[in-house]
């Protein structure tokens, strides 16, 4: 299991990541040109990291503007599909092994970012009762509203419709990913509620993640296992989920985060105080033989931190490293 942070190309951020002793990073996708991200864009970014002895393991995420018409199932989806496939081919040519994508038509959802945490730390929170009457739950969080994605929906979409769109996408894209040597990883819906503003959200329990895997059986079709999101799914035990999905070798990428509560309401807290027994979770990752990248996910806002939340991320990197090393030491005794 390799600890990673989401990286930018800034020298200061790269220096921070290096000083933490990390060698793996994940990063977003470069800008597309006419619906395709060129191979040179991936190579250029990959080489910047490589010059600092950092390996770009995961693209997080496939830019929604490359496939939003596919998610919504519009007449434009064929055109977008060609761009997605060519982009995946370029990812493969650049040697980046994992591409994460999500199928949240209206993006991630949060309703608060309040100083209600330990010592007044700011915790992102979600409450379904609030979100149902608040379009800003997605637009504020995802920075939408001014852009094409996410936006307030034009019409309702059922679970069956959204599943049909995802299956159409997978059947077209997975064979391309196989040929390109790219592993595509579906991130669950965060927050995992069944609908928002009349649009269904489908990846909201462990069975739905299994359905993604089973829709197109392939060694290149799997899951981006967000511990925080899965931990907030109603009634889900994250340790069991790690064993179920990870035990199939279907986790291509993981997020390290510990929430408190499950839908209909939850908050994102520090990793040492959430509902998930993180030591047991790391032990579970080791038991299923997960050797991919686990990225420190969102984190609470702490006093004096910079815009990247370096202080909060540093705490979580230390915490995860401590668990990994301690469990390894304990296993050896």
């Amino acid at each position: 299991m390799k600890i990673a942070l989401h990286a930018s190309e800034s020298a200061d951020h790269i220096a921070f990541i290096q000083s933490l002793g990390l060698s793996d990073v994940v990063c977003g996708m470069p800008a597309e040109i006419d619906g395709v991200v060129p191979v040179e864009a991936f190579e250029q970014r990959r080489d910047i990291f490589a010059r600092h002895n950092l390996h770009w393991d995961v693209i997080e995420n496939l830019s929604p503007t490359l496939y939003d018409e596919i998610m919504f199932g519009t007449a434009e989806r064929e055109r977008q599909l060609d761009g997605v496939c060519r982009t995946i081919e370029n990812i493969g040519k650049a040697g980046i092994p994992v591409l994460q994508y999500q199928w949240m038509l209206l993006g991630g959802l949060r309703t608060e970012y309040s100083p209600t945490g330990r010592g007044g730390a700011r915790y992102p929170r979600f409450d379904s009762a609030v979100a149902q009457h608040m379009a800003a739950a997605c637009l504020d969080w995802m920075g939408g509203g001014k852009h094409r994605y996410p936006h307030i929906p034009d019409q309702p979409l059922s679970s069956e419709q959204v599943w049909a769109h995802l299956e159409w996408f997978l059947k077209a894209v997975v064979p391309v990913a196989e040929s390109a040597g790219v592993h595509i990883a579906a991130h669950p819906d965060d927050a995992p509620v069944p609908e928002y503003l009349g649009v269904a959200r489908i990846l909201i329990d462990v069975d739905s993640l299994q359905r993604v895997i089973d829709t197109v059986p392939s060694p290149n079709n799997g899951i981006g296992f967000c511990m925080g999101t899965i931990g907030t799914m109603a009634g889900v035990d994250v340790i069991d989920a790690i064993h179920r999905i990870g035990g199939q070798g279907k986790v291509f990428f993981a997020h390290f985060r510990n929430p408190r509560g499950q839908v209909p309401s939850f908050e994102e807290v520090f990793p040492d105080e959430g509902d998930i027994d993180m030591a047991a979770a790391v032990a579970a990752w080791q038991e299923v033989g997960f050797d991919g990248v686990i990225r420190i996910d969102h984190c609470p806002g702490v006093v004096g931190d910079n815009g990247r939340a370096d202080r909060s991320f540093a705490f979580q990197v230390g915490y995860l490293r401590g668990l990994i090393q301690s469990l390894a030491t304990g296993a050896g005794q």
Partner: protein
Amino acid sequence: MKLALTVRYGYDEELIFAQQLGADAVIVRFDLGDPRDTDLAPVAHRVRVAGLQLAGVELSGMADQFQPWSDGLTGALLAAQNAGIDTLLCASPTQHASTLGQDLEAVVATTSMTGVRVCLDSSRLLPEELAWLPAGDVQVELVLGVPGAGADGPAQAAARVHSGGISAIRFEGGGLPLGMGAIDVTAMLRAIAAAGYDGLIRAGAPPLLGEDDDWNPKGAANDLGYLRAVLQSLR
């Protein structure tokens, strides 16, 4: 074990930071060389009203020579007693070897009178000095991660704990994040826990992680998170 974060006196941000990151307690670094600050009552008060537990005051700015060092420490012990502070941490002034016991007699007497414990930094003591301690309430902060500071491996650390007089344990990463340096922190912690240690632990000087403020809060956060995780995994 109780996990503490070291903060500087007068820096509110550091107290808030400790609380947010879930430190069980703080050790406040207090500059004894600053003549404007001789009263420890405000130190205890600020920590208390911030909702934190004060595990001790670490004295800095002390004299290098024994007598003025001893005088300063005696004054601090009395100030600590008045402030309700039960532990002072500091480094010894010079290396005394055979005369340390005799030299510290007055300090030992003052600790008995005040009920305030002194923890001497093991990385500043010679082996023969360490062997003399504890003496009454003059005890040891065992420093792990500095060669020759009293325990160079888990077995030695456990033996030190068994021998008694260890009131605090500090892990030094040598400029690297804990877990990335030469010291096997997890093995050390497992060993001292198995030896029955249940006292105070803290990280030492935090590493500089990228660009940072002068108190290296990123490094402090990383090391606190590391120690918290190992403690949780032991449970």
